[in-house]
């Protein structure tokens, strides 16, 4: 079955898709004030990067791309675990999820 799924694909299109996913995520991170939405946008960015890796790995026919994907996955898991703990903390503390309300980190 998997063999049939393969196709002749312009690699550039796949990369542009990855970049588009990344940029949509970036725009989300920049636009949203809600921490939850920022985190979701961050996941989009990670997926864009991950897709680029897997695509490159598939093009070259080696496993390195997927290895990087696994590492990105690990990173995302760790990030989300800590970030969500922080979000819960933040909400209990501030009664708000507004990231801009947290600007005392500058001091």
């Amino acid at each position, binding site marked *: 079955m*998997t063999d049939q799924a393969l196709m002749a694909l312009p690699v*550039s299109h796949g990369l542009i898709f990855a*970049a588009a996913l990344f940029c949509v995520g970036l725009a989300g991170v920049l636009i949203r004030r809600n921490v939850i939405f920022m985190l979701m946008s961050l996941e989009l960015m990670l997926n864009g990067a991950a897709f680029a890796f897997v695509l490159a790995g598939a093009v070259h*026919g*080696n496993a390195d791309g*997927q290895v990087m994907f696994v590492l990105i996955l690990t990173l995302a898991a760790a990030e989300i675990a800590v970030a969500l703990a922080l979000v819960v*903390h933040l909400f209990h503390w501030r009664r708000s999820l507004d990231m801009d309300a947290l600007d005392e980190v500058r001091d």
Partner: protein
Amino acid sequence: MQALFYITAIIALAAAARVVTGVNAVHALLHLIVTLLAVALLFFMLGAPFAAALEIIIYAGAIMVLMVFVIMMLNQGDAAVENERLWLSGRLWWGPAALAAILLAETSYLVLAGGGSGVEPRPVDGPAVGRALYGPYLLAVELASILLMAALVGAFHLSRKLRGRGRTQP
């Protein structure tokens, strides 16, 4: 099969756009899950079934569940949606959108300028990934495990503190 790729990609991007522009956190999350599933499908099409499975099991099945969990736990209600709508309104849109668009244009230009014809993706199955992980990338795996441990301890610590705070507050 190429058509399937484009359709999936467009679905992924459309869902991603809804994530970024949505006002209801759970709906946005569902769209994000759709994006993830679409990406998983793309992985599958690229001959990376292992990555596809991981994308679903871990990303969609665990990480996103955690996020839904937290959103439900905070349970902000309709006021949050209104608030979100308020935050999203106005001119704040244009700057970031322009930045992202410029970045996309640049990368697209670079990718297209690099040329490159259609290449037949070669499938890489799970065992190959496993051999690579525990071969040349062993150090990275160990580092990832350390990272996970750190995240575990960190998350645990944060939630512990919260519990202590809750106890002191009436």
